[in-house]
């Protein structure tokens, strides 16, 4: 679920790039202060991990599946800023090396999926973890899908208002909020449950793997 090229107006993606550039700088400084000289291979490995997590199947009833996001797994295990940087790098790699996604929409996608998705997951994890760890992971996974979907729905839905010709004809994404909000939020609210389940099971399996390494 990320926006391809050509659907966002320059009035949207240029300010988004300015905002994202500032936040990438903050994230890079935070990572530098948290990690030692080995931050480069570590960030590269987490980026590759984010890349492959986005390829994993999120099974749907009936035998079909969609791609998982993996953002909650990243945010809970590696922190919000690392997750933001890794997801941003994956989106850049997908756009500039594989031709998937959008270069003009990269900043909006990075802010929605990488930052808002990670922050929502991290927040849900912190709030609910003292109550029940499993529930917190499921909610983190759900929030990491629903919050970005809501942001993307709003960004797409305001395009006809901010970018139209003198006759009112839309120049970019043509549907308003009344269409984008239900079209994106309803399916993602359901997909978020699957993402939550995957986050929970993935973290449980990782803990078992780590215990095996220790043993």
């Amino acid at each position: 679920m990320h926006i391809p090229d050509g659907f966002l107006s320059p009035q949207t993606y240029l300010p988004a790039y300015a905002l994202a550039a500032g936040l990438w700088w903050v994230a890079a400084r935070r990572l530098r202060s948290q990690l030692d000289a080995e931050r480069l291979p570590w960030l590269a490995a987490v980026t590759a991990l984010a890349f492959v997590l986005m390829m994993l199947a999120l099974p749907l009833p009936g035998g079909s599946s969609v791609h998982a996001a993996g953002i909650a797994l990243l945010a809970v295990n590696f922190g919000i800023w690392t997750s933001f940087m890794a997801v941003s790098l994956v989106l850049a790699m997908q756009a500039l090396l594989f031709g998937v996604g959008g270069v003009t929409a990269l900043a909006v996608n990075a802010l929605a999926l990488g930052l808002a998705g990670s922050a929502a997951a991290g927040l849900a994890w912190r709030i609910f973890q003292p109550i029940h760890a499993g529930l917190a992971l499921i909610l983190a996974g759900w929030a990491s899908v629903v919050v970005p979907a809501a942001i993307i729905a709003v960004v797409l839905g305001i395009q006809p208002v901010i970018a139209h010709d003198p006759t009112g004809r839309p120049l970019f994404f043509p549907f308003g909020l009344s269409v984008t909000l239900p079209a994106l939020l309803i399916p993602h609210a359901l997909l978020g449950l699957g993402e939550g389940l995957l986050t929970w099971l993935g973290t449980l399996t990782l803990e078992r793997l780590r215990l095996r390494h220790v043993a």
Partner: protein
Amino acid sequence: MKRDRLLLVLYLAALVAVTLVHDPLALALGLLGLLLLAGRSAPRLLHRSLRVILVFNLAVSLGYALLAHLRGFSPWETLLLLNLRVLFLTLLTFLFISRVNLFSALDFSPTLSWLLALAYSQALSFQRAHADFRLALASRCLERPRLIDRYRASAAAAAWFMDRALATARDSALALRARGFFDA
């Protein structure tokens, strides 16, 4: 300025410029120009571009056509503009990818260049491992696995990739340190 870096700058400038054009005829002529520039690879790049944009653009176009029909206005000019712009931008990106070495274009920043090269090579290796996981699940199931089993398979793959990523990071750091990368 190096060729690849210059082409990267021109490509980024062209992306912005295309989103400032709202005349379908100008976009169609630009698209024609791009196809001429692509030369013999034009059919392949056009096919790739159309394949990438097909699902999203078809959904948006059909939805908008239906909305226009219900509300009684003509959608064609908007749809022509939107689809031409998206096709132009996608074709431009594939042409850029086919002609420019991104690693060389980004070598003004050794850190960025290294990061991209490390992440890309590991991503390709993970991509192959992911295909193996998929085939392993398929080959071990005589009948379609249950929903919960498919979730367990995805979760096991996710955990394995996380574990592997951390091990790879340690190996890469040791290899880079051994080669004096952190001494600079």
